[in-house]
């Protein structure tokens, strides 16, 4: 027999069991009905996936680009891929001529792997692909996981994209195998993964109020000069940003990455096999950030370009030192003058080659 417990001496919290007025059997069946309600609600939630493709989000430019490529214009000859630096930095209208139209198909955070997804959709009229990459992608150590973000891959699927075996083969070089999973998922898994769109929809609504300096409508729809950043950043903020970027960079030694060269070679080969010219554009870098890249890395890059490691002469544009500080709106995005300079520079190379 156990001795009486002296629990009154212990200041443990009191326990308040539920009062259960109903019979346990009734309660059990009520619980089953409630669980069924939860499942019914979850089932109804699945229907929302039907409207996801039309919900505004940060990656809806993917839809704009895919739609444009699926309804091609015969005069489209040149396309430019890249990230927000190119969105702000290249005016495809200025690059176009009467018989040779160009399109700026860059999008926010677009990586080489993401650009490569569009290659299969390019219409036969396209003869020149200008592919932009950042200097940091070429010379600084970074994770391969960033090569194709799951959300970006999922956005392609949501907008009806399916990679061909040829594209998947190219992507195996450009991105780690696991990052390709969202591209291969079935429709249900793809829809479940696409719930980020709902959250972004809320957030971009707020951003339109909070970021008057950004033109998100233009960024989503404009295929010539999307230019989401519309005005220069305040100098004090820019200084903070530079300092932060420098601190971020402190730990990494810059050197030309083997993977980068292989990736570019694979992308070039892919385009050339389809009968297209591939021009590599190394995007401009703000002069304030020059010191982030060790001189040895820059020399390495120069040598690599001269020796043809990234492609034959005339097909590589090194725009890293093209722009002055005043040509930028912020630490990376060219302003109107910068865009004009960069576009003229690209036009020259494209026409020459």
């Amino acid at each position, binding site marked *: 027999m*156990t001795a009486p417990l002296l629990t009154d001496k212990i200041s*443990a919290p009191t326990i308040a069991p539920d009062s259960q007025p109903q019979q346990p059997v009734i309660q059990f069946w009520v619980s089953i009905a409630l*669980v069924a309600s939860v499942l019914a609600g979850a089932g109804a939630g699945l229907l*929302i996936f039907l409207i996801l493709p039309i919900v505004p989000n940060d990656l809806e430019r993917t839809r704009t680009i895919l739609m444009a490529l699926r309804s091609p214009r015969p005069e489209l000859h040149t396309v430019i891929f890249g990230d927000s630096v190119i969105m702000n930095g290249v005016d495809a209208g200025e690059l176009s001529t009467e018989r040779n139209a160009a399109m700026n198909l860059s999008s926010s955070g677009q990586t080489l792997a993401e650009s490569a997804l569009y290659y299969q959709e390019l219409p036969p009229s396209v003869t020149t692909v200008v592919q932009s990459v950042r200097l940091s992608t070429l010379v600084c150590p970074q994770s391969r996981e960033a090569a194709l973000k*799951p959300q970006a891959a999922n956005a392609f699927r949501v907008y009806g994209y399916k990679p061909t075996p040829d594209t998947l083969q190219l992507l195996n070089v450009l991105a780690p195998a696991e990052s390709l999973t969202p591209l291969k998922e079935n429709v249900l898994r793809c829809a479940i993964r696409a719930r980020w769109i709902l959250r972004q929809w*809320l957030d971009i609504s707020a*951003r339109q109020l*909070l970021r008057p300096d950004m033109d998100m409508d233009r960024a989503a729809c404009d295929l010539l000069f999307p230019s989401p950043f519309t005005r220069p950043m305040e100098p004090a903020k820019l200084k903070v940003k530079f300092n932060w970027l420098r601190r971020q960079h402190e730990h990494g030694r810059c050197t030309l990455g083997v993977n980068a060269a292989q990736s570019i070679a694979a992308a070039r080969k892919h385009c050339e096999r389809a009968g297209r010219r591939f021009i590599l554009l190394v995007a401009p870098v703000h002069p304030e950030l020059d010191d982030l890249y060790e001189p040895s890395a820059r020399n390495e890059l120069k040598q690599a370009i001269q020796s043809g490691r990234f492609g034959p002469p005339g097909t590589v544009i090194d725009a890293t030192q093209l722009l002055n500080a005043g040509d930028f709106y912020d630490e990376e995005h060219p302003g109107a003058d910068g865009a004009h300079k960069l576009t003229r520079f690209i036009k020259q190379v494209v026409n020459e080659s």
Partner: protein
Amino acid sequence: MLFHTYTFLIFSTILFAALAVFRGFTQRKIVLLAASYVFYMWWNPAFGALVAVSTLVDYAIGLALNRTDEPRKRKALVAISVSAQLGLLMYFKYAGFLAENLFVISRLLGFEGPAPTFNITLPIGISFYTFATLSYSIDIYRKQIPATRSLLDFALFIIFFPHLIAGPIVRAAQLIPQLERPARLTINPSILFLFLGGLIKKTLVADNVAVMADAVYANPEQWPSAMIWLATIAFAVQIYCDFSGYSDMAIAIARALGYELPVNFRHPYFAINPSDFWRRWHITLSLWLKDYLYIPLGGNRHGTLRTYANLTLTMLLGGLWHGASWNFALWGLWHGLLLVAHRAYRQIRERWLGPLQEQSSFLSRTAAKLLMQYCVLISWIMFRVPDAEKMLIALRKFVFFDMNFSLAGIGAGSLFIFSTTLLLSGFAALHFWSYKHNGLHACLARMPLKTTMAACAAAGLALILLWPLQEAPFIYFQF
């Protein structure tokens, strides 16, 4: 195995099926014991042996304590128990931390030598079950409870899976008597709402607001004060929903199995002062610290200064209980100082203005709540940011508001302001309702069936739309 995973769904289905088949009193306890070991060893099978050894040591010591009345022998026995349990905790949790700090001190004193390398895997939940076993032997030593003769009951008390990993910290006096009588499997709406509420807190609120807190605290220097504030509030909600969500699910599962676990949270963000906060936040830990640390240190029995020192030391150690890192120590110290400041304020106020009135005005209560939560938010920055430099930046921006509301310069894809604010507002509204009605699950259980079914359908809808894509472990698992 996490409560909100498919693995746990399968585990619990098998467990309930087994309990339905084995209806004998002892049979069910054996099934529960086996299931609890499976649950624990899912992470790392080797650590099952560690819990088993702890269990056997304290079981034997408990029986030995029961057999003797000789003070010296009893003292020696309890000392063995405490040393064994704390020794294991020190080795697994604090050895690396101590070695690192000794190394830094020795370098400062001019000694040269290689930096120590410790690669010890922390057994999950060790802080929680160590406190449970410690309280058992100390309570027997104090003659507050008798030692249990049943090894099965004692082993189940230690490893009972709902409370094992992240509490609530259960005392022998609470669980062992329940294990000595037959338990009845129960499924009722109240249990369902409690579990569902915990699940929603964890997956819908905690894991979703964490995205913003993580983004901001990764680089606090990059963000203006407004964002630091929002991220801090987001983290305060995240940690509350994460931990209390786990506790709710644990209590609900235990209730379904026929056992009652102690309450761990009582709307802590409505606390009006530091003492009140600790009567509402992680209640089982604060009571443990009070009973087994603060009172043995002398409590408030040896004068004002000693009381202050005891309070500070208790909270400092309470902070370190969370993890072997200086930011946790600082967090504990801050709470200790808040308790001291509050006690000093009360004493001074009572001396000059007479005894405090219980019924204070709405305005003064609201002001007290806001001030208290301001202090709590500061403490969450200490808790969340282990890097000293980043912590100072975040604290400076939090305390000295920069009035900068422009968000230019922040990457287009990195803003979660609106959805996070919306989630936080939704949580705040429900939490306030729960506070006013003494618990949301109890309130729902009283509503008409149609209303509760509609609420459940809404919960199902929210779960499918907002369930995070990546499984996030509970914050308190690391402790």
